[in-house]
């Protein structure tokens, strides 16, 4: 899932300082799972805003809505009837959802309430770890299912560097060395030959905005264009 963190309150408060009526919109998918921008977090943020603005003598009126996915126009459409009632929208979705919302309502300021952080996993309740940088050319088959782009601090394809420290990364004792883990896993699977070969320079495919159209839908896309 996409993991996000809510922005510090003061930063959000400053963004809406010129607005009197604001709609806070949560997203019911990734950011709800990682407890950053779901229905519950919308309620918490709105309460904070109301109290803070009341104390400032500059009261704010806040609305609340949470859609299934802000990265999908079909769900954003639910907001069409109410959007005009507000001076601005605070989106608690990831960066993709925020941008899609801003695209749907180009006349309304859409402001982010979260920092989108990474693609990761749910290690435990409230505990998330980054696993993928979306480089677009996956080498997990070679590296025993451990991503060197994400998990190695230097993103080495032919690691480990000289700084491995009893299985830890040189930057932090709490961070395991990705290449140490890759070695251990491949050794157990008798697949060390994978990393004895030189892994050639990566074909980075995340340097321009990417679009994917599944083959079955190319005609549909052509019709839109």
């Amino acid at each position, binding site marked *: 899932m996409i993991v996000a963190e809510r922005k510090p309150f003061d930063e959000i408060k400053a963004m809406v300082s010129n607005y009197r009526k604001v709609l806070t919109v949560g997203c019911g998918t990734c950011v709800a799972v990682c407890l950053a921008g779901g229905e519950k977090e919308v309620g918490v943020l709105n309460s904070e805003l109301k109290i803070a603005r009341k104390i400032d003598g500059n009261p704010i009126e806040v609305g609340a809505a949470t859609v299934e996915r802000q990265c999908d126009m079909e769900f954003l459409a639910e907001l069409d009837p109410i959007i005009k009632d507000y001076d601005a929208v605070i989106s608690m979705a990831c960066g993709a959802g925020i941008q899609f919302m801003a695209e749907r309502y180009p006349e309304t300021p859409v402001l982010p309430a979260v920092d989108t952080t990474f693609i990761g996993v749910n290690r435990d309740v409230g505990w998330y770890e980054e696993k993928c940088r979306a480089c677009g050319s996956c080498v997990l088959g070679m590296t025993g299912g451990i991503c060197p782009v994400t998990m190695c*601090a*230097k*993103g*080495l*394809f*032919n*690691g*480990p*560097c*000289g*700084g*491995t*420290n*009893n*299985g*830890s990364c*040189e*930057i932090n004792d709490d961070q395991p060395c990705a*290449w*140490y883990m890759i*070695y*251990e896993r491949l050794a157990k699977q008798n697949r*060390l030959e994978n*990393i*004895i070969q*030189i*892994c*050639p*320079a*990566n074909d*980075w495919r995340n340097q321009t905005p990417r679009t994917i159209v599944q083959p079955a839908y190319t005609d549909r896309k052509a019709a839109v264009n």
Partner: protein
Amino acid sequence: MDEPKSGSNLEKILEAGHFAFTGELGPPRGTNVEAVRKKCAFLKGNVDMVNVTDNQTAVVRMSSIAGAKLLLDEGLEPVMQMTCRDRNRIAMQSDILGAYGLGLNTMLCLSGDHPSFGDHPMAANVHDLDSIQLIQMVRGMMDDGKFQGGADIKRPPKMFIGAAANPFGDPFELRVLRLAKKVAAGADFIQTQCIYNMPKFREYMKMSVDMGLHEKTAILAGVTPLKSAGMAKYMATKVPGMDVPDEIVKRIAGAPKEKQAEEGIKFLCEQVEEMREIEGIAGIHLMAIEWEHKVPEILEQAKLLPRPQV
């Protein structure tokens, strides 16, 4: 190393069968070129080549290329260091062309220390290529006359290509395999991380020799003098991937404070003596770390002078 290709002094020294000796110089954290020239005076005539570091420990300094050119003008033979941390493959190739254009013919390909160690921990960590891919790229520029993207280079550069190796990082078994990858990628010479654990280094060298790596590349053993007991303890406990055995720390600490530097140099000289006899070692790389002024004295004691002229 089939035939001299680069004009590198290190290549000539090795081709002639001499035991090579390289030094190191860190460029200034400003524009003080006089300081560089002053350091040069201690090294000139005493070393076969001098590595010029590339923003080591991720701290901003004068560029390696510019530093190397200053050395060249002083009559030294510089090795340009290049890390993968700060440039993408376009900038790297551009710098290699520029370096060759300025008369540099020897380079060392490195991953680079992580920015979190330096004075710009927030800097983007480029690593478009890793060090092994960088070696491959330079090899391709020279041997195939092609840029990494596939286009032809008009008048390709010639470089004697070096790489670093750390015999002590874990997992130990993987270290020789990684050295083999660097050799396969096209490294003409290797300079190792500072060595203090001689038995382990012997084991590493035996594994390297068993794989025949010493016949395909020239391995220079890295040494750094321990200047004090404090430094020995720091190297033993704080520097990732460094292996300083307890008895070495105790030996330096056992000397009276004013004699510790002397003891460190004595140990280094013993190491050099021992390294000369280890199969597969083609030379020594001395990283004096801001102790350039001591280099002549160290070399004298280690019986590495005079340097051969080839």
